[in-house]
């Protein structure tokens, strides 16, 4: 199982010019790995993240996720894959501002067609787990940045995905909150989740067990730590 990328390319057409954001990436990620993807802006790391997260499709190449080829799936199948197998954590949290923390966490289960009672119980349990048990009925704008990101992490976990993807999860946070969030990711890693982290900060990448550096749409280095 896990992730298997083979010769993934992604090209964009801007005017008459064709720009290759990914020039041919092959990668294997096994279940339970904690990976950081690093690289300067324009390196293609965001594009790689979008493809890994099934938000986008590669121009060519093969992407096998948990034994299933996803590079050629249709929009709705990609949506279902995102819903069930992948949890997202974004730099700017991306919580829905008109919903309480509890409803935000439960949202992916709405699209997984889970009943309301079960949904809210699960969401409440996850908010307890990330230490926000007392703030279930708060709106996102009543929470601090670190608390919002913890809500987002709880939301990413609600459908029990095998992979959690985080795009600069600490980019908008102060150092103390950043440490809290990274500890949370470490805990998830210990629990057996695959974690893929996109960042440009070496201190954040240091939490990962494997660091992949991307430049000009190619893998520059792939280092594993023991």
């Amino acid at each position, binding site marked *: 199982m896990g992730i298997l990328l083979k010769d993934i390319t992604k090209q964009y057409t801007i005017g008459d010019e064709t720009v290759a954001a990914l020039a041919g990436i092959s990668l294997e990620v096994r279940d339970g790995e904690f990976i950081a993807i690093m690289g300067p802006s324009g390196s293609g790391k965001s594009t790689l993240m979008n493809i890994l997260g099934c938000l986008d499709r590669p121009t060519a190449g093969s992407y096998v996720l948990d034994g299933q080829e996803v590079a050629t799936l249709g929009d*709705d199948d990609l949506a279902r894959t995102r819903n069930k197998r992948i949890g997202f954590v974004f730099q700017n949290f991306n919580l829905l501002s008109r919903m309480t923390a509890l409803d935000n966490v439960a949202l992916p289960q709405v*699209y997984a067609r889970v009943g*309301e009672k079960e949904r809210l119980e699960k969401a409440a349990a996850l908010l307890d787990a990330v230490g926000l048990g007392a703030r279930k009925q708060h709106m996102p704008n009543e929470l601090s940045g670190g608390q919002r990101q913890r809500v987002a992490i709880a939301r990413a976990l609600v459908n029990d995905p095998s992979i959690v993807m985080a795009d600069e999860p600490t980019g908008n946070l102060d150092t103390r909150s950043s440490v809290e969030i990274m500890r949370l990711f470490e805990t998830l890693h210990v629990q057996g989740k695959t974690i893929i982290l996109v960042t440009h900060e070496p201190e954040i990448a240091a939490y990962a067990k494997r660091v992949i550096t991307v430049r000009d749409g190619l893998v520059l280095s792939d280092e594993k730590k023991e």
Partner: protein
Amino acid sequence: MFKESVAIALRALTANKLRSILTMLGIIIGVGAVIAMVSVGMGVREKVQTSIASLGSNMLIVSPGAASSQGVRSASGSATTLVLEDADYIKKTVGGIDHVAPTVSKQYQLVAGNQNWTTSVYGVTPDYMAIRSLTVGSGSFVTQAHLSSRTRVAVLGATVVQNLFGDANPIGQSIRINNAPYQVIGVLDSKGQSSMGQDQDDVVLVPLTTAQERLIGITHINSINIQVSAMDDMNRVQAQVENLLRQRHRISGTKEDDFSVRNLTSIMEMATETASTITLLLGSIAAISLVVGGIGIMNIMMVSVTERTREIGIRKALGATYQDIMLQFLIESVVIGVLGGVLGVGLGVVAAQAIALFGELNTVVSVLAIVVAFGFSVAVGLFFGIYPAQKAAKLDPIEALRYE
């Protein structure tokens, strides 16, 4: 999923209350206008029907045709061949008839004391009362005895009483018609205006034979009103009456009738049809405003989709499919249509009552109009919601997430 979508829609609508209400206002006014206008049209129709029915229902009217002498044809009604015996014969021989009322009429000047008034004097039989749905307020009506003895008695309409006697009681008083004295034996209850705008109370009724022999000096009659028992029987009775009169007047083959038989039911059908056309016209004009309201919904939904691009991106990233997003926005616009429809029905009913109260127009609020207008508003919400919902559902999640 449906329940969640309704909850999401309501939350989105309450988040922008003023905007939602303004959008709904288009639908509210549209639905209200349809219901109010249709109720005005239905009111006109009902009024036409009752005023024609007040002439007497299931009525056939026989009137004399045009007299013709050596190829010169006079005005319709000038023939003098229709006589009282024709009426008696029809009553005796044709089945399925309730009443037969022959009449004559002419304008005369009436004098009572120092007052005078000019109006139509009708020579009538006792059947006339039933056939015209008249009621005598005080005194009595013309009787068979009056007819046999050609008595000089008169029954007055309310307008005549008002002009000759004012508030005094006219019963037992004497009036002069064409300089001959007549005793007032009764006063009719007011019937108001006819559908043609005639004052139906401006009449004087005297016994038919008195009018023929002692007042006008004729032997023919001006019309025969025939009330048929059953509506379905109208055509048969009409054909039989026509046949009978042709025989009695010795009109054979292709020779032209010297009488005509009119069917009030067909007049009623025609008038009802006209009123229905008016209703349809008013309703359609009002329906246009409903469509304009729908365009308002579409407009605001487009704005809403653009504003919530990021929200759509988040939902898609979390696994919302094309259908999920489509449903969410469709339900939102349908909710506008439903709420607007409900409020519009209320407005329409109130407006119809107000028109009846202050506009002196008869209005009939029809359940069908309410159901159709409400259904139409929901359909408008659905139809004009499709395009914005599609636009939302088609958004690319990456683009949408990047939207500021």
